[in-house]
C-alpha cells in the first residue's frame, strides 16, 4: 500500500480520492475484512424492503442500482434495517448496524444514469420510496457475493448479485406530495424543499433524488446516493438559511453535547449572524488514521450566505441539523461544531449518524456561558488528549481566539 499521509485520509474519508488512487485502499481493506454475516446460496430471496435502495457511482454514467431486502423477515423487523433515527435513539452499536446492513440481500441492476425514465415502469422504484416496508421478491443471476460495500457517506450495502428479476408483491405507498412531484415539472431543488416542508424525512428525499424521480423531466438523472445525500442536505440548508434571513440572533451562549459510535460532538451556539465553524479531530490509530502518531484536525468554515471553504459530507449533515433547530426557534446564531473521532469508530457507516447525533444533541438542554472563550475552553478541555487540543487549535483560528471584527465594532449605530 502506498504511503499516504493520514491527515489526507482524515480529510478525504474515502470519497474525495485526494490520494489520487482509483479506489480507496482503506475502504478496500474493509471489503475484504468484514465478511457479510449473511450466507445466501440461493438465487432467490423474499421479504420486505425497509425500503432501502442505493445508486453506486462506479462507472458513472453506467451506474448500479441496488434494491435491498432482508430475506424472510416481517415488515416491522425489516424496517429496522434502514432506520437511522431509530438506531441513534436506541444507541445501536456499530457492530449491530453492520450486521443489520449486511443481512440484506441487494439485487443489482445496471442503468444508464442519463435515462432514469427507463425505470418508471418498474414497481421497485416506487417501493424504494414507500412510507412503509413493501413485500418483494428478488431473483439473482447468481448467488450474491458475501461482501460489504462502504463509501463513507451512504449506509453500507450487503451481499449483492446481478438481478434477473425484481417483483414487488406488496403495495408501495408514497407520501402524497412525493406522488405528485414524481409527475411534476418542478426543479429538483424546489421539489426537495417542498418534500422537506411536507414532513418527508431526508432519507426518503435522498432516495427519491438518487433514483431520478425529482426535477425537470428532461434534466432528471440517476444520482449516485453519496452525491444525492450531500445535494439534499445542502439544498435544504440553503432554504433554511434564506427562511432565517432578517431573524434576530440568539442572545446567550449555549453548549450542547452528544456522543454516539465513538464520535463526540460539542455544538456551541452564540450570538451572531450565521457563520459555521466545523472542526474535526481524528485520534491516531483510528479509521482513517491507522498509521498516524499524532491526532489530525481540519476545519470547514462557512459564511452566512452559505459559502464554505471546502465541501464535506459530514459538515453538510451537521449543519442541516443545526439550521433545523434554529429554524424552529426562528433565531440565527454563529455556530462552532467540534467533532472528536475516537478509534472505536472503526467502520465508515455513513454520515447519517452525524445528522442524527447532532439533532439529538440540540434536542437536549444546553449549558449556558457568559463568555465565548469559556465555552470554547470547556469544549477543548473535553477532548481526550492534550495533543488533540493542540491539533484543534492549530486547525481553527476561531478556537485560538481570533474573532472576526465587524463594522459595528467601529460604528455601533450601524444596524
Amino acid at each position, binding site marked *: 500500500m502506498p504511503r499516504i499521509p493520514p491527515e489526507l485520509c482524515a480529510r478525504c474519508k474515502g470519497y474525495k480520492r485526494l490520494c489520487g488512487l482509483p479506489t480507496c485502499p482503506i475502504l478496500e481493506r474493509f471489503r475484504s475484512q468484514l465478511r457479510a454475516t449473511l450466507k445466501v446460496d440461493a438465487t432467490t430471496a423474499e421479504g420486505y424492503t425497509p425500503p432501502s435502495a442505493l445508486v453506486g457511482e462506479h462507472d458513472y454514467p453506467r451506474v448500479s442500482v441496488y434494491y435491498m431486502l432482508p430475506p424472510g423477515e416481517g415488515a416491522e423487523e425489516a424496517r429496522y434495517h434502514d432506520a437511522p433515527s431509530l438506531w441513534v435513539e436506541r444507541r445501536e452499536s456499530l457492530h449491530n448496524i453492520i450486521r443489520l446492513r449486511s443481512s440484506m440481500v441487494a439485487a443489482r441492476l445496471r442503468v444508464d444514469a442519463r435515462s432514469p425514465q427507463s425505470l418508471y415502469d418498474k414497481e421497485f422504484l416506487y417501493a424504494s420510496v414507500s412510507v412503509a416496508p413493501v413485500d418483494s421478491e428478488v431473483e439473482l443471476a447468481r448467488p450474491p457475493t458475501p461482501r460489504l460495500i462502504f463509501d463513507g457517506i451512504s449506509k453500507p450495502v450487503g451481499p449483492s448479485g446481478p438481478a434477473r428479476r425484481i417483483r414487488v408483491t406488496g403495495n408501495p405507498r408514497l407520501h402524497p406530495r412525493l406522488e405528485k412531484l414524481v409527475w411534476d415539472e418542478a426543479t429538483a431543488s424546489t421539489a426537495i424543499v417542498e418534500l422537506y416542508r411536507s414532513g418527508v424525512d431526508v432519507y426518503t428525499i435522498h432516495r427519491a433524488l438518487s433514483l431520478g424521480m425529482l426535477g425537470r423531466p428532461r434534466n432528471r438523472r440517476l444520482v449516485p446516493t453519496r452525491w444525492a445525500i450531500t445535494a439534499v442536505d445542502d439544498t435544504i440548508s440553503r432554504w433554511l438559511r*434564506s427562511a432565517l*434571513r*432578517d431573524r434576530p440572533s440568539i442572545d446567550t451562549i449555549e453548549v450542547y453535547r452528544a456522543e454516539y459510535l465513538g464520535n463526540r460532538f460539542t455544538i456551541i451556539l452564540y450570538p*451572531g*449572524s*450565521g*457563520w459555521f465553524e466545523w472542526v474535526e479531530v481524528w485520534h491516531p490509530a483510528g479509521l482513517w488514521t491507522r498509521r498516524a502518531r499524532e491526532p489530525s484536525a481540519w476545519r470547514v468554515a462557512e*459564511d*452566512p*450566505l452559505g459559502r464554505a471553504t471546502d465541501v464535506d459530507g459530514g459538515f453538510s449533515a451537521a449543519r442541516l441539523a443545526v439550521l433545523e433547530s434554529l429554524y424552529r426557534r426562528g433565531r440565527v446564531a454563529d455556530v462552532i461544531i467540534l467533532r472528536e473521532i475516537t478509534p472505536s469508530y472503526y467502520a465508515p457507516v455513513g454520515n447519517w449518524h452525524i445528522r442524527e447525533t447532532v439533532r439529538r444533541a440540540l434536542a437536549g438542554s444546553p449549558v449556558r456561558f457568559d463568555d465565548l472563550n469559556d465555552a470554547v475552553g470547556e469544549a477543548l478541555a473535553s477532548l481526550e488528549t492534550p495533543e488533540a487540543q493542540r491539533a484543534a487549535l492549530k486547525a481553527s*483560528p476561531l478556537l485560538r481566539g*481570533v*474573532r*472576526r*471584527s*465587524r*463594522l*459595528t*465594532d*467601529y*460604528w*455601533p*449605530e*450601524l*444596524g
Partner: protein
Amino acid sequence: MPAETMAAKISYPDAKAFQNIVEALSKIIDEVSLKLTPEGARIRAMDPAKIALIDIWLPSSAFLEYSVEEEVTAGFNVAGLLKLLRRGRRGDRLDLEVTPEKITVRMVGDVVKKYVFNNLEVLEPEIPGELPFTFKVSATILADLFKEAVKDAETVGETMELEAPDENTLYIRGVGAEGGGVEARLTVEAGQIIEYRVEEPCKSRYSIDYLKYVLSLTKVADTAILEFSSNSPLRLRFTMPSEGRVDYLLAPKIE
C-alpha cells in the same frame, strides 16, 4: 378617483456596467433595495455578517433618461437580476420601470428583452449619517493595479495587509498562514500612486475574500481610492467615468 401613481422610469446607457455592479452586490447579499429619488439612484447594503457595507450612488445625470417624481424603492433578488443581466450583450441599454408592485427590466439592443419581477419588500440597513472615524491614509491608484495586487495576495493566503510607512510608499501584501507572503511596493515617485495623503504611518489587515467580492467594480472604474488607518476599517471608493461611485467599507481582520 385617486390618480394612479406614475411609474418611475430610468434608462442606464450600459447594461454590462450595471451587471458588474450587481456582480459585486451578489457576493455580499441576496436581496437588495434600489432607492430612486429625483436626485439619483442609491443602493446600500450590509452583508449578513456585518463585515462589509456597500454604498452605490448613481446621480440622475449618469442616466440617459431619468424620470422619478417621487421617491420609490425597488426590492429585488440579486441572483435573479444578475442571471438576466448576464444574458445581455455589450452595448445594450438598460431600462427600468418601477411601481410599488412591479419592476420591469428591459435590455435594449438588437432585440428588446423584457422581464417583469415582483417588487419585493426588502429590509434596508440602518445607516446613520456620518462615519464616526477618520482615515489617516488615502491613496488613489489605478483600479487595475488594485485588482492585480489582490490577485497576487490571494496566491499566498486569506489575508491582505496594507502598510503606509511614509508619504511615498504603499505596500500591499498577501499574508500566508505559515509566515510566507507576497508584497507589491507602490510609490508616488514611480507614478503608481496618483494621489497620496499619509497623516501617520499605518498598517492594517483585511480579508482577501471580501476584497475579491468587489473586484468586478474595477471593470467599471478607472481609479480606486484606498482609505484606512491602523487596525480599523478600509474604505474603497470606485469612481465611474460616467459619474457615480461605489463605496465599500470593510472591517479589518484583527488577530
